[in-house]
């Protein structure tokens, strides 16, 4: 196949360069950004080279076996939708990589930073190019992990760490739900290959598990794309360095959820459940983000909320799912990427050069940062949805796509008005004015930091005038991939005086009102807490705190330090499990009519039992030991009754030794009664378990002895003992010949027990270090020995 396997190679190459990045950075020094940008630039060029084939409706498909035991392949598929996303990832990635070189110039963590950033890019490319659910999931999780490390870049700052963890737990939690959804999807569709699943949508939509699939996959997509009520992690993720915010948390990673929904919409979409889930989530996200944005004055957080608005819009449009809405979604997606990334980078440049992100603390920067300001204005006008920029084209299209859903349209208009306000706060207010207000003396950003954003903003301007440049070649094939069939549409800057244009005017007017009344509204909102803490963020915090509390509680209850407590649970469980099984499933049969014994046999058995009970009740240690001895000797006598002399001798011997050793140990233990001070209920529980356990063993013994016995093993031993093993004592022959390996183990146990007892008894060993940590001493020895190693 022409071009076969090269898409995968591009992704793997990106991972390879990522791993090599630390070395490259050390070699290239300050020029690292420019050098490393060759990778995303090259991938962009490579992707563009496939543009014509994809535009012609072709999909480039590759399949490399990975885990064949599980039918998992590294399948890659480049179609219209993948191409748009991949171009965004690589194209914006180029600008970001260059920008980061300037932004983080001289940072000692730069090598790690580039490693993570490029690894993220590779993983993100993997997500949008995978044609296999499992490999998609693998890349998906890799984006979450790299995001975790990038958000926590300033790791010595506690807020960064918390934000990183929050972002990880929310997205990874969603990811696990998504994995469950993928597994069901795979089982329902009989394959993990996405293109095969999409080829038979009815089998999925009609399946009884459809709703479960939708909800689980939806959970993954919605958490990743920060939809309400999971939106909170995204503004907090602004703790990351600005290039990361611009790239991961605006242009690419947060769009992975959008991508997934778009990708799977031919199979999962078009149902009422799909419509309501996505439109409600999207609209709620837009409205929540729009309102919360009014509280912000930090430029990056403002932009984060504007990203949320855009993500909500995209999800909502996918939920609507009409050809118009999907076309609008694709165009909006590109429009957003082209203006939001430069705006973030501009905000970062301002922070970098003027020392603040507080939009109220900055004025007049346009005089010293003209290029940055022009970039901000061009991107800002696009973001605000004003002509003649691409953002305008996109927004008009989105309005048109929602004409059939006036409520959703209303929500979008309201949110777009807030976008106008955000643009004013970020792109106008800090730059305008004659006097310069800034914490540090501002100056223009270096080339590396203005080139990327300027080019992207210029792209938005060019496409505004000439949207047809990408219309048929990119947008239409992408929409076709989502819709499952071709729906050609044309992009225009000027539609004439249409309803959409009127709504745009209304939006701008509303935005101007917001700009005008911003300060009083903002101050009023900030002065009260308004119970924001009870929102989803509060929910997350409460959940985490609750988890820790619950964990501590269950550990306290189950994991006390008291051995007796453990033994009671363990034995209670043992007896309950076995006893209940015996009672309800055992169907045990007994035969109690055994051959009667001799009188003295009964006497001995009674004696053994009485001795055991006496050992149990003894308060005096002497009585207890004597009772144990009696019980042990009684058992030995039982062995004598039933023709087991070797056993009897061993039992006598061992019992005697144990009694002597116990007595020796007792001499050195504190005197005192064995009486327990436990309360009644503890005794009752232990007593119940003990009695039940004893009964169980009696019953089992009887049930087993009632069965016929197969003595073939013993018959063999009896027959072979002398002829083959030259031994007359069969028990001995078994021990030393037939089952000699048992005896080997037995001797080992004795030897180790003896050496262990010796180790324990070595008085000097314990005493010398009575309160000094042994390991500390060993450490010291090694530190000394290791010297300067």
């Amino acid at each position: 196949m022409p071009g076969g396997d090269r898409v995968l190679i591009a992704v793997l190459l990106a991972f390879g360069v990522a791993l090599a990045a630390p070395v490259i950075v050390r070699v290239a020094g300050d020029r690292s950004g420019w050098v490393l940008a060759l990778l995303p630039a090259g991938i962009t060029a490579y992707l563009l080279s496939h543009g014509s084939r994809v535009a012609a409706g072709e999909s480039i498909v590759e399949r490399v076996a990975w885990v064949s035991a599980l039918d998992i392949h590294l399948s890659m598929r480049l179609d219209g939708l993948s191409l748009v996303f991949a171009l965004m990832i690589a194209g914006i990635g180029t600008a970001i990589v260059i920008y980061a070189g300037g932004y983080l110039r001289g940072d000692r963590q730069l090598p790690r930073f580039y490693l993570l950033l490029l690894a993220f890019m590779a993983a993100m490319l993997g997500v949008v190019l995978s044609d296999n659910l499992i490999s998609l999931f693998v890349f998906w999780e890799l984006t979450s992990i790299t995001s975790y490390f990038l958000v926590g870049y300033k790791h010595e700052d506690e807020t960064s760490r918390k934000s990183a963890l929050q972002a990880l737990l929310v997205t990874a939690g969603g990811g696990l739900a998504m994995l469950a959804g993928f597994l069901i999807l795979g089982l329902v569709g009989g394959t993990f290959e996405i293109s095969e699943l999409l080829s038979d949508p009815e089998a999925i939509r009609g399946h009884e598990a459809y709703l479960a699939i939708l909800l689980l996959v939806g959970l993954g997509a919605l958490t990743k794309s920060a939809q309400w009520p999971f939106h909170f992690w995204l503004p907090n993720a602004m703790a990351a360095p600005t290039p990361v915010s611009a790239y991961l948390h605006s242009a690419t990673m947060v769009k992975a959820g959008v991508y997934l929904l778009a990708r799977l919409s031919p199979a999962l979409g078009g149902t009422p459940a799909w419509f309501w889930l996505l439109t409600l989530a999207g609209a709620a996200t837009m409205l929540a983000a729009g309102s919360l944005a009014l509280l912000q004055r930090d430029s990056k957080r403002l932009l984060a909320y504007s990203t949320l608005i855009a993500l909500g819009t995209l999800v909502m449009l996918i939920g609507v799912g009409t050809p118009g809405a999907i076309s609008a979604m694709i165009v909006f997606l590109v429009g957003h990427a082209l203006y939001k990334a430069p705006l973030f980078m501009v905000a970062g440049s301002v922070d970098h050069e003027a020392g603040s992100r507080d939009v109220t603390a900055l004025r007049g920067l346009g005089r010293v940062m003209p290029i940055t300001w022009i970039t901000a204005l061009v991107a800002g006008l696009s973001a605000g949805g004003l002509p003649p920029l691409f953002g305008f084209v996109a927004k008009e299209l989105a309005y048109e796509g929602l004409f059939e859903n006036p409520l959703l349209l209303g929500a979008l208009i309201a949110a777009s008005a807030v976008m106008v306000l955000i643009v004013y706060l970020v792109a106008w207010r800090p730059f305008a004015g004659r006097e310069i207000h800034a914490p540090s003396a501002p100056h223009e950003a270096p080339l590396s930091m203005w080139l990327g954003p300027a080019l992207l903003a210029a792209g938005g301007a060019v496409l505004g005038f000439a949207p047809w440049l990408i219309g048929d070649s990119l947008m239409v094939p992408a929409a076709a991939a989502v819709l499952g069939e071709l729906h050609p549409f044309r992009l225009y800057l000027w539609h004439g005086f249409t309803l959409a244009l009127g709504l745009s005017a209304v939006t701008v007017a509303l935005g101007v009102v917001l700009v005008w009344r911003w300060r009083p509204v903002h101050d009023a909102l900030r002065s009260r807490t308004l119970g924001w803490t009870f929102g989803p963020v509060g929910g997350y915090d409460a959940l985490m705190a609750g988890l820790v509390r619950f964990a501590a509680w269950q550990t306290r209850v189950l994991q006390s330090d008291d051995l007796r407590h453990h033994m009671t649970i363990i034995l209670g469980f043992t007896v309950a499990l076995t006893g209940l099984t015996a009672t309800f499933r055992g169907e045990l049969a007994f035969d109690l009519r055994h051959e009667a014994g001799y009188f003295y046999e009964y006497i001995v058995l009674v004696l053994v039992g009485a001795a055991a009970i006496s050992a149990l009740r003894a308060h005096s240690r002497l009585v207890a030991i004597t009772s144990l001895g009696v019980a042990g000797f009684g058992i030995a006598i039982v062995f004598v009754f039933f023709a087991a002399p070797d056993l009897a001798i061993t039992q006598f011997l061992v019992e005697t030794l144990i009694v002597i050793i116990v007595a020796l140990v007792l001499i050195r233990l504190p005197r005192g009664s064995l009486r327990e001070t436990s309360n009644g209920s503890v005794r009752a529980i232990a007593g119940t378990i003990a009695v039940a356990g004893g009964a169980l063993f009696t019953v089992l013994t009887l049930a087993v002895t009632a069965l016929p016995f197969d003595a073939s093993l013993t018959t063999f031993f009896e027959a072979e003992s002398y002829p083959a093993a030259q031994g007359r004592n069969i028990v001995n022959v078994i021990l030393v010949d037939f089952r000699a390996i048992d005896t080997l183990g037995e001797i080992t146990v004795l030897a180790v027990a003896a050496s262990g007892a010796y180790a324990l008894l070595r008085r000097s060993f314990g005493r010398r270090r009575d309160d000094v940590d042994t390991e500390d001493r060993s450490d010291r020895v090694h530190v000394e020995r290791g010297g300067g190693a």
Partner: protein
Amino acid sequence: MSWLVGAPVILPLAVAALLFVLQGRREAQRVISTASTALLVTLSAILLYRVSEGGILVAQFGEWRAPFGISFVADHLSAIMVVITGVMAVATAVYALRDIDPDREALGYHPLFQVLLAGINGAFLTGDLFNMYVWFEVLLIASFVLLTLGNRREQLEGGIKYVAVNLVSSLVFLGAIGLVYGVTGTLNMADLAIRLPQAPGGLVSVIAMLFMVAFGIKAALFPLFFWLPASYHTPPQAIAAIFAGMLTKVGVYALIRVFTLLFVHDVAYTHTILLWIAGFTMVTGVLGAAAQNDFRKILSFHIISQIGYMIMGLALYTPLALLGAVFYIVHHIIVKANLFLVAGIVRRYAGSFDLDRLGGLYRRAPFLSVLFLVPAFSLAGFPPLSGFWAKLVVVLAAADVGAWPIVAVALVVGLLTIYSMTKIWQAAFWSPLPDGVELAPRPSGLLYAPVIGLALLTLAIGFWSGPFLAVAEAAATELMDPTAYVRAVLGDAAAATIGRTP
């Protein structure tokens, strides 16, 4: 080739005897002990290779034929377990060269370590139920002594609990063996596979419960796991690592063995109980970890939680699920032991296991940070590391039979595992060094060698999981159909009688 089957047991036993004689000659002991583990892993690898090429290998001790003499049987599962024991032996032996202090060496650390290995391998290879009890006792007494070697208060306290619970579990095991013998008149497991189905099912189920409890205690299943977090944080890290890696897995192995070979007459009952236990084990373990603030205690609780996944694979009792269980065991041993080894290095840097007293290691020791991340993220199940495939397979197996509640439990526990691992990461590596704590110079490079080796193994299993899954699949196939096992031990005629009722 039958000597090869016994070699993984006989070699460490012989080395132990030799080291015992060499007591007092520290350098000789260190060299011989470490070198012998290399030989052990080589022989084990050859054994696994032979088994995968030529099928199950059997050795009869003293040339007494089965079921009269004691059989050692190396099927895929046993051979895999023996290989992984060998890998662990090499890793911890090398680590111990810098971790175990001369006092402990003088008290017999080296021979004890070898006896422990012999006990573990004996339990994996024996084909005789009573003989398995003997090897269990061998590894137990060795672990008792290793755990308390040093006589620190903490060790004695943990040691008492560990010893007490394990002695009780051994007695339950012994009683259960007695009952099995009384029912069938045999102890050879292949023979039992033929005779147990002919015995009254109810009685066999009751006896099965006793085995479940006896092995469940060793495997640290809910609610029998208390001894583990009470003791595993007390010995030196080289010892803790092999304990954490291998000892619970001996219990898991035994559960897999008896609940695939012996007690499959009423799967709907026995294995459903196992599934419930697996779920509770996962949840209580991970919650226990969430409540801890000590590096090693968090790791200890995670052993429990992860055991739940393995038992889940066993409980589902499908070829895919058993594949997952076997794969999970291998992955988990490598990863968990490695985390304990990393914890030891961290302690040498910062002087503590207490997360509140740790910090600054990402800045100071970036390489160690990576070495922590590989096993930690693998444990957390992040793709494409080994833990991801392990979790994926067991979850997929559960989904396949529609066991959705356990799928949900497994995934939520996965998320909580991520939480625990990041908790360690953030506290020990990311956060700044707490006031008053100073980092020591970099510890000996010899401590890093096994950590690097195990991390590379984790990466290899993750990126190149195919061959590992294939071996696990072969093991699962044998477990699902014990005919091959019985045929290898008792011959064709006996194998034909499997499952036949009288």
